[in-house]
Each structure stands twice: as C-alpha cells, then as structure tokens.
C-alpha cells in the first residue's frame, strides 16, 4: 500500500511537470513578473547605488513572495475545473500525499526558478556577491514555505470564481515570519554577523510547514469540492 501511494505520488509529480513543460507561460509569467516588479523599484525610488544596495534584499524577497503568491492559483485550479481533483480524492491513497505532490511541483516550477533568477536581480540592484549567495540560500529555504502555506489558501479559495484577491488577503499575513527571517538573514550576513541563527529558524518553519500545511490543505480541499 505504501509502495502504491509512493507510485501515485511520483506519477502525479511526473504528470504535472509534463503539463508545466507543455504550458510554459504558466511558470514563466511569475518569473517575468518577478523581474519586472523588481526593476520598477529603481524607477520609483531613484537609481542611487547606496539606497538600492540597502533595500535590495527586501525588494527581491517581497517581489519573490508576490510572484509565488500570484502563481498559487495554478496549484489546484485546472485540476479542479476538469474534475481531476475529485478523482484524486476518490483514490484509495491518502489525499495528503497527493497534495504533497502538487505542492512539490509548484515549488519546482516557481520556487526554484525564482531562486535561480535572484542573482541576476541582486546584480542589477548592486548587491555584493556574498549577499547574493546568502539571498539565494534564504530563498532556497523560504520558497518551499511559500508554496506550502500558499497551498492552504489556494485550497480554500479553489471553489470561488474570483478567489485571487481573497487568496492574497488570506495568505499574506501568514507569509510575514518567513519574510522577516529571509531578509533578516541577508541583512545580518551583510553586516558581518553570523546568519546561521536566521537560517535555523527558517529551517524550523520549513519543517513545521512541511508536516502541517498539506494536512490543512487536504482538509480545505475536501471542504471546497
């Protein structure tokens, strides 16, 4: 039975990755948004090197968070509309495991690319090289949390016609801790201090989200369908 469930998990991951590869705009649009929104800040604030360097970690983190949030609807939306989600729910496998697969794919197609794109943005916002490394590492720990917590909001609003605005209202307050520690790690590291405390806390949040969020998302999906 466990082997079967694992098989169901991997086949969902494979299928969703294939779908994402065939429908490229779904995962490239958040990346373009990320890039575009980041480049709006120098235009709004002014191109001064010192100011940009100071606020770059915050800008990159906030826009990455918004980009991840805007792509959340895609986790369950299309499967909900064509009835796939109902079939998954009827399957004998634990529904939470199938939700894990969905969230993992969301992270693979948005979180990882966002993290890989962040050095480029750090560069144009004049971040120093060691700051960029810290930023990438904090995004590596932080983006799975964004996908995991976000999946709860996506599950709660999947049945609603215009759930996008509501989704951000539900999810953004819950994103605050990871944002604080994510930008905090970079700031502390750039200040010459040891950032490992922040990273450990982010890891703790990640483990907690990993164990609890899919349960909540699965329960929410059962309500929504």
């Amino acid at each position: 039975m466990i082997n079967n469930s694992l098989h169901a998990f991997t086949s969902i991951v494979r299928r969703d990755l294939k779908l994402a590869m065939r429908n490229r705009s779904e995962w490239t649009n958040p990346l373009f948004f990320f890039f575009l929104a980041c480049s709006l800040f120098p235009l709004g604030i002014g191109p001064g090197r010192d100011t940009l360097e100071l606020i770059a970690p915050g800008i990159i983190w906030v826009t990455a968070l918004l980009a991840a949030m805007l792509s959340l609807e895609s986790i369950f939306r299309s499967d909900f509309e064509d009835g796939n989600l109902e079939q998954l729910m009827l399957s004998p496998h634990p529904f939470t495991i199938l939700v894990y697969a969905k969230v993992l794919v969301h992270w693979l197609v948005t979180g990882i690319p966002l993290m890989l794109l962040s050095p480029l943005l750090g560069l144009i916002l004049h971040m120093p090289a060691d700051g960029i490394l810290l930023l990438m590492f904090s995004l590596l720990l932080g983006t799975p949390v964004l996908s995991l917590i976000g999946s709860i909001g996506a599950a709660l609003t999947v049945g609603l016609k215009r759930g996008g605005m509501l989704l951000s209202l539900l999810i953004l307050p819950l994103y605050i801790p990871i944002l604080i520690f994510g930008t905090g790690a970079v700031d502390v590291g750039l200040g010459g201090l040891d950032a490992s405390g922040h990273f450990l806390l982010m890891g703790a949040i990640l483990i907690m989200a990993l164990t609890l969020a899919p349960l909540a998302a699965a329960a929410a999906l059962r309500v929504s369908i």
Partner: protein
Amino acid sequence: MWKYLLKLTSFKNFYQFSGKLLPWLGVITFILFVVGLYWSLVIAPIDYQQKDSYRILYVHVPAAWMSLFVYIVMATSGAIHLIWKTKLSEVIANNCAPIGAVFTFLALVTGAIWGQPTWGTWWVWDARLTSELILLFLYIGYMSLHSAIEDRASAARAAAILAIVGLVNIPIIHYSVDWWFTLHQSASISVSKGSSMHPSMYWPLFVMATAFKFYFATVLLMRTRNDILERDQNANWVQEQEKSL
C-alpha cells in the same frame, strides 16, 4: 453532566437557556463598567511621568487581551465544529470574528492615541503593534472568506480551517516580529512573574479586564441568539416564540 451539556447545544435549548442568562450578564457587565471606569479614570493615582494620558491603558490593555482571547475562542469553537459538527459551535465561531476584529481595532487605535504624546508618534513599526495589525488582517481574512463562500455549511468549515491555521501561526508571527524590532515595553503583568504594577493601578485594570470579558460574553450571546432565530426561522419553536410576542 455530559448529556445535559449536549442537550444545551441544540438551538432551541440554547436559546431558552441563554435568554435566562442574558439579563444577568448584562447587569454584571454594566456594574463592572461603572465601577471599573470610575476607579480607573478618577480614583487611580496619576502616573508621575505620563500624567493622565496613561489612563487609556485601562481600555487599551483589556482590548488587546481580548483581541487574542476572542481569536482563541473562535478557533476552538471552529475546531469543535469541524470535529463534532455541532451547529452551535459554528454559530459561535462566526459571531466571534466581528467582535474580535473590533477589539483588535480598538487596541490599535487606543495604542496610537497613547503613543502620540508618549512616544511622540502615532505609529511605529514595533513588534507588538505589528502583530496586532496582522491579527486584524487575520480576522478580516476570516470574515471575507466566510462571506465569499455561498454555501453556509462549507463556508463555516473553510473559515474554521483558516482560523486553526491562523492559531498555529500567531505564536510564530508574534516571536518573529518580536525578534525583528521592538520599542514597546515588555508586559507589566505576566502569569509566571506576577505584576510589576502598583496595586492601586493594577486592581482597576483587573476590574476593567473582567468587564471586557463579560461584555464579550453578553454581545456574543446576543449575536448568537439572533443568528439562531434566523437559521431556525421555519422551526416550530421559533414560530411559537413569534406568536407569543
């Protein structure tokens, strides 16, 4: 005992029971407010540093306590509804949200009014203020999710899940902003260390906090009774109630 409690959770029995309870709660709330307000605004000594402006804490602190307490009540009754599917807990959870949001708003506004003369600014990005603001957003999110879903039963269940997720998050949010930046003084009263306030200032605060608790219970019962009547409007006992008026 258990059987008796279960009986109480039916709409009809709860309506009749709370009808008997409500006048008492109302009277106690009124007396506590009269005593507490007079004590805190007139009798309690003036603070040597903040002069009279400190007296707003007699509203601010109970409101801030209640903002968290109401959230816990809301999430707990939401969880009870999810597990045992009792109708009453659903109604209670839903009616907690607007009351709790108002307490949170009151705590924020009184805090701002107090901060202007004391800190010299209406708003600072301080840990407690920020977590209180986030709490307000959690309440607003709860209410908008509940009103966005048309089907009443699934709206209540979805909102309950959100409330529980929020409850797990509140300590994390609290500590994250706590370590982030803080200007607010640490709590003067704690369960483990007792109170660092002088008794002449502490006791009126205690009375006010109790008054706020009773006020919450009264308003919650009134709202719940209203909701019960609306939901059961076609039931026999409601029709009879109407005729007897």
